[in-house]
């Protein structure tokens, strides 16, 4: 009885605290947003700026801030505390939230909803009209995601044990599945915008992982090597008509050379000084590309970059005599080229990953990791830090160059616009969010961050909910930045925060990243 009362009074105290915090949040949100959200600067017909008040939007934002803060104080924080508190009578921790959320009854509901909406969703959408139809679509997507997540959750140990072969198989059959689901024309979007786009970032992030994740050198200008690779292929390909297969190693070599050129002067710098100098180099390369108009055509960029051919045997230009549909006797379609590019970037990614895994076991890879953990100890043990750092820069840059020449071939057009600092930041964010040094974690991070923002373009049903002038693309980078902050606060070590040793006595034991201390390299 007395216990129940204390519990009750504790509950009302939490609610009182929640209301107080919600009030503070509302006041803070009001002052933060009163000018920037409450008023919009618009140009009138005389080209002067005028202010348009938006009181309702401001009120909505303030209310949302208050509600979120209230929920956090009253429900989320006590819930997280309860998850870590042992039950006094049983002496055990409460069942993990994930186990309760992914329970079998829930799966049945999820399966029924998903199957029902897959079968009857379209007719239901037609019946209830576009507004409620949007919610039907949302529910269908949520049910499918739940079922997939359930499967992943229950087979997590299997997936964990076979992650590389499973991931590779899925990636290998991905275009086939997409073509059989949506047809050649319909699959273009999924293979190109999702598959190729994500894989380019996977490759870039794995390349940067060598510099940041393995060698521990903070590089904020990685996009410079990407640009060098892209412009090498673009310039040599358009000027001399050389093939992609000759220029791919050339672009990689050029980028590696630039890696050494940029790496050499900054060898003495450490930590944040290194970061700012690499950022400066990235900006210098971009500014040179913009201003050296005689060679790079300035901000207008280079267009008409030749397509990749299948080792010269099969071409993807419709006018060529060995065009793919003429050689194989099939109908013309632009999708073949995209599927070919998909497998090409997949092969490049596999190459990057394989080289990284093998390098970690070589003396140079071990020297990188030693350098990351403690530079002084490294020197004391007689490791040549100069060559170790330079090889890290060169090899990381080489993969950036490969990715760059692929990018140029895929777009058929390059301009300095594609190589801004934001790209470096995104690649670095993927490396850190995935867990530095972990290839699998980085691939997942790339899929989540890049795929997640790409999928926003597809969410046309949001237009039905928020009104026709709502453009989800506008919020893409806003949500990307917010996701970076949230994931980092939630998991500061990234998705895969453990360290796997390359040398071990009896069995390989992963070490939690928080036990390792990184030097200031």
């Amino acid at each position, binding site marked *: 009885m007395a216990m129940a009362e204390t519990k009750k009074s504790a509950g009302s105290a939490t609610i009182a605290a929640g209301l107080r915090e919600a009030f503070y949040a509302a006041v803070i949100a009001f002052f933060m947003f009163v000018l920037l959200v409450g008023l919009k600067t618009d140009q009138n017909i005389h080209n002067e*700026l005028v202010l348009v008040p938006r009181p309702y939007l401001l009120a909505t934002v303030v209310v949302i801030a208050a509600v979120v803060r209230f929920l956090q104080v009253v429900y989320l924080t006590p819930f997280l505390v309860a998850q870590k508190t042992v039950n006094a009578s049983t002496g055990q921790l409460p069942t993990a939230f994930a186990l309760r959320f992914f329970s079998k009854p829930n799966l049945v509901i999820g399966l029924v909803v998903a199957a029902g909406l897959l079968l009857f969703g379209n007719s239901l959408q037609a019946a209830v009209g576009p507004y409620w139809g949007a919610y039907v679509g949302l529910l269908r997507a949520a049910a499918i995601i739940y079922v997939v997540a359930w499967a992943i959750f229950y087979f997590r140990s299997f997936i964990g044990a076979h992650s590389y072969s499973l991931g590779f198989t899925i990636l290998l059959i991905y275009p086939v599945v997409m073509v059989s689901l949506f047809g050649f024309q319909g699959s273009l979007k999924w293979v190109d915008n999702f598959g190729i786009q994500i894989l380019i970032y996977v490759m870039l992030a794995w390349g940067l992982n060598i510099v940041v994740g393995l060698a521990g050198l903070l590089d904020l200008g990685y996009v410079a090597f990407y640009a060098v690779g892209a412009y090498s292929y673009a310039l040599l390909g358009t000027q001399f008509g050389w093939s992609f297969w000759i220029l791919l190693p050339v672009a990689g070599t050029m980028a590696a050379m630039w890696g050494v050129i940029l790496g050499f002067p900054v060898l003495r710098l450490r930590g944040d000084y290194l970061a700012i100098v690499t950022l400066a180099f990235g900006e210098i390369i971009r500014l040179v590309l913009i201003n050296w108009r005689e060679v790079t055509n300035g901000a207008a960029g280079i267009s008409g970059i030749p397509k990749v051919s299948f080792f010269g045997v099969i071409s993807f230009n419709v006018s060529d005599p060995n065009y793919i549909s003429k050689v194989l006797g099939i109908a013309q379609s632009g999708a073949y080229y995209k599927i070919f590019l998909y497998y090409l970037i997949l092969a490049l990614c596999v190459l990057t990953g394989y080289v990284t895994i093998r390098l970690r076991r070589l003396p140079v890879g071990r020297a990188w990791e030693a350098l990351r953990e403690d530079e002084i100890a490294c020197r004391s043990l007689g490791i040549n830090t100069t060559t170790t750092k330079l090889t890290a820069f060169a090899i990381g840059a080489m993969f950036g160059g490969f990715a760059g020449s692929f990018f140029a071939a895929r777009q058929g057009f390059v301009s300095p616009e594609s190589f801004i600092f934001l790209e470096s*930041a995104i690649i670095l*964010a993927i490396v850190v969010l995935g867990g530095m040094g972990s290839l699998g974690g980085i691939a997942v991070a790339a899929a989540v961050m890049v795929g997640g923002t790409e999928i926003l373009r597809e969410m046309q049903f949001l237009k039905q909910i928020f009104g026709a002038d709502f453009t989800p693309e506008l919020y893409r980078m806003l949500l990307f930045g917010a996701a970076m902050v949230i994931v980092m606060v939630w998991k500061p070590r990234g998705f895969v925060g453990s360290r796997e040793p390359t040398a071990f006595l009896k069995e390989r034991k992963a070490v939690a990243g928080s036990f390792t201390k990184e030097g200031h390299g």
Partner: protein
Amino acid sequence: MQYFIQQLINGLTLGSIYGLIAIGYTMVYGIIGMINFAHGDIFMVGAFTALIVFLILGAMFYSVPVAAALLIMMIVSMLLVSLYNWVIEKIAYRPLRGSFRLAPLITAIGMSIVLSNFVQVTQGPRNKPIPPMVSKVYNVYGVSISLKQIIIVVVTALLLVIFWYVVNKTSLGRAQRACEQDRKMAALLGVNVDRTISITFIIGASLAAVAGTLFLMYYGVVVFSDGFVPGVKAFTAAVLGGIGSIPGAVLGGLAIGFIESIWSAYFSIDYKDVAAFSILAIVLIFMPSGILGRPEVEKV
């Protein structure tokens, strides 16, 4: 010679703005050892706040004296932008204090993306021009000095004096310097470290807000992406002067301002940023801890 002095005056103006932003970078780095990438965007939010206050003043009153308008813009912008930086520190940096080195850097980059895109979404992606606030130009021995430039230099000098007083003569400044030297020891001696760090962010944001207001007054135009380039240059200035050193930040800001204006006057305006960044790289290679920075001694 007159042309050269003219360029020095332009460089001084530009350098004052960079210096004000650079102080925010260097103070935050000094106290928690983190590159606050969002600081450039804090500066941009300051400029936007000032812009909106300017428009409100223009809409509500028939005419406001320019000095009063500028003062109101600065004060409102300082208050609101401090609030922004305070909230950002609380939600994005404080939970990661004591975490590994790259985590707060990534949240800072995330916050920078959030801030610039937030302004883009709420205020639109276009340039926001305002009519010139101050247009008087003085001619001294063939060198033209605009009133705008005088205002910028005087305001900066005034703020630096106040700031110098706060850091060196008040208990708040003492707490701050203590935290900078040894956070754990300062906490043991009764310094409220969390509060000191919050105040550091607030001071940095106020200086950036003033810089934003002056930037708006000087150029008469602002756009959501304006945070990046001045931010990077101010950070360059902080590193050039020796990061963690407050006089170094001002010195570095002035150096970057002079380099930029002289390079664009005598060589090529296209490559002025390349020149600033190259000089940064060269200085760091030969003087790895900047002009006034303490050499980093690593204890094993």
